[in-house]
C-alpha cells in the first residue's frame, strides 16, 4: 500500500504527549499518530451508527458516558 508524508504542527505539550505515548506504548511516533487516527475514526463511525461511548470502571462497573457534542 502506498504511503504519503505530511508535516504536523504540534505545540510543545502535544509533542510531549506524543513522546510520552511512544514511551508507554513502545511505539514509534508514526504508529502512535496512526492509532490515534484509527481510534478517532472508530469513535466517529460508531457514534454515527447510533452507539454511545462509555468508560466503565473495571472494579466498580460504574459507567460514565463520554458526551460528544454534535
Amino acid at each position, binding site marked *: 500500500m502506498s504511503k504519503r508524508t505530511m508535516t504536523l504542527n504540534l505545540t510543545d505539550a502535544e509533542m510531549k504527549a506524543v513522546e510520552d505515548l511512544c514511551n508507554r*506504548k513502545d511505539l514509534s511516533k508514526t*504508529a502512535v499518530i496512526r*492509532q490515534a*487516527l484509527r*481510534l478517532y*475514526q472508530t469513535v466517529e463511525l460508531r457514534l454515527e451508527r447510533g452507539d454511545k461511548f462509555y468508560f466503565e470502571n473495571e472494579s466498580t462497573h460504574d459507567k460514565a458516558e463520554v458526551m460528544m457534542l454534535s
Partner: protein
Amino acid sequence: MSISKTWLLCGRTSALVEAEVHAEIGERQLHDWSAAWRPAHVAAIERLRRTTPGNSSHVLEEHPADWKSKAASIEGWLAKTSFSLMCQDMTQGMMIVDSASRRARLPSQHNKESIYIDYIEAAPWNRRVPGNPQRRFQGVGRTLLGQAILLSKDEGFEGRIGLHSVPGAERFYESCGMTRLGHDPKTLNLCYFEMTAQQANQFISE
C-alpha cells in the same frame, strides 16, 4: 491491494499447492462465499446432524458468518483490515482484524497494542469437522493467523494478536501456541486466546 504468495497442503495428495493472501475481501471473495461456501455449509450441517445428532459443540456452526454484511460494515474503516486466502481460483479462507479497539490482556503485555481477530473462517470444505473426513486444503487457519501476526509486526505491535474462539476451534488455537485466558462473559462467554511476541515468533518460524 497487496497480494502475497503462500502454500497450502492439498488434503487429497498431500502436495503443497501455491496460494495467495489478498489484503481485501472484495466482490470475487463475496461471490465465492455466496455461491460456494453457503451451499457447502448447509450440506455440512446436514451431514453433522446425521452423523452426530445433538452435538452442541457445533451449535455456532449453524449460524454462519454473513461475510457480505461484515465486509460492507468495515468499508473505509481504518482500524479494520480484511484478508482472503485464494487457492485454485477459489476463496479458501477469510479474516477481518482490528488494529485499534483492543488491548492485550496477558499480564506480561497488559494494555499493549495488539491485533484483534474479529472474524476468521475457513471455507466449509477445509474444516476439520465430523462428516468431513478429508479436508480439501490444510493450513488455511494457520496461514491467516500468520498474516495477522505479520500485520501486528508491521504496525509495531511485535506480533501480538488476540481473539475469541468459537467452541469447536479452541484446540486449534492451543495447537498454534496461543495462551488461553478463559471464558469471557462479555463476549458470548467465548474463550479468549492471546499470543505474545515470543509465541508469534515461534509460530512464524515453524
